[in-house]
């Protein structure tokens, strides 16, 4: 095992957006067993530190690969694009307008005659949009051209907004109960 490998290599999985979550979980368990700190109880401090480092890397890798958004961001990062730390890249104003409206609806949901129904409907809408963006990303990241890579990055930027929306919806749902 080598932490200079990327997460896909580390997990012995193909570097693609499509991913078998069951296979990932199996690989994670296997790697975890190999790395379990108890097995290193007799080792030197330095070796133990290395094992702790491996464990941290392993967990981070697992969390990254498992999440559809983080995995997409990671694939872009491997291609030199960091959509997470951009401050205000140019986003399509139409898309922002929609986001504004959706955030408005989420904010007003508790005053809705049927708050649960409204939140469920919003959740549904966001999930649908998210699924479309993920499909778009999967198509684009597989293509070699620069245009396709730009399109993939733009899909991920939008996913970041939708992710925030769905977290807001979740927060309100928690508050309602």
């Amino acid at each position, binding site marked *: 095992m080598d932490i200079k490998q990327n997460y896909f290599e580390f997990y012995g999985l193909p570097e693609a957006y499509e991913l078998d979550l069951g296979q990932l979980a199996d690989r994670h368990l296997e790697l975890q067993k190999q790395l379990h700190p108890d097995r290193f109880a007799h080792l030197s401090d330095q070796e133990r530190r290395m094992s702790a480092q491996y464990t941290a890397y392993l967990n981070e890798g697992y969390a990254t690969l498992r999440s559809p958004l983080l995995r997409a961001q990671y694939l872009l990062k491997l291609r030199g694009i960091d*959509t997470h730390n951009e401050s205000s890249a140019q986003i399509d104003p139409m898309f922002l307008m929609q986001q*504004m409206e959706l*955030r408005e609806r989420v904010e007003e949901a508790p005053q809705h005659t049927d708050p649960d129904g409204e939140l469920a409907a919003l959740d549904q809408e966001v999930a649908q949009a998210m699924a479309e963006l993920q499909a778009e990303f999967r198509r684009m990241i597989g293509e070699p051209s620069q245009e396709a890579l730009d399109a993939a990055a733009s899909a991920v930027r939008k996913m970041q907004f939708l992710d925030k929306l769905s977290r807001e919806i979740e927060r309100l749902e928690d508050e309602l109960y």
Partner: protein
Amino acid sequence: MAYSEKVIDHYENPRNVGKMDAGDTSVGTGMVGAPACGDVMRLQIKVGNNGVIEDAKFKTYGCGSAIASSSLVTEWVKGMTLDQAADLKNTQIADELALPPVKIHCSVLAEDAIKAAIEDYRKKQGS
């Protein structure tokens, strides 16, 4: 996260929250978002015939710093000419509100929003 007193003041009593008619030719609308956090902001200005900003409104879905930054900008730009408002820098906002480095992008959002609103207004006037 410890917010400064000024941030808390704007957060608790945001100035000029609201919406103007985006179709009005004397209104400029700026719509921006920060991919880093998924927050969005709308900032609008109403400009008089003399090129001075008469009124400003905003709505921000974001953290306290973003709300405070946009609230502050709407206060500042009232009475400014478009050129003066276009010169506003996010560092002035961040200084005034004593934002910590991790919250700088929130003030950048407000700067981008006023610039976008001015651009929208000018585009409308030009056409």
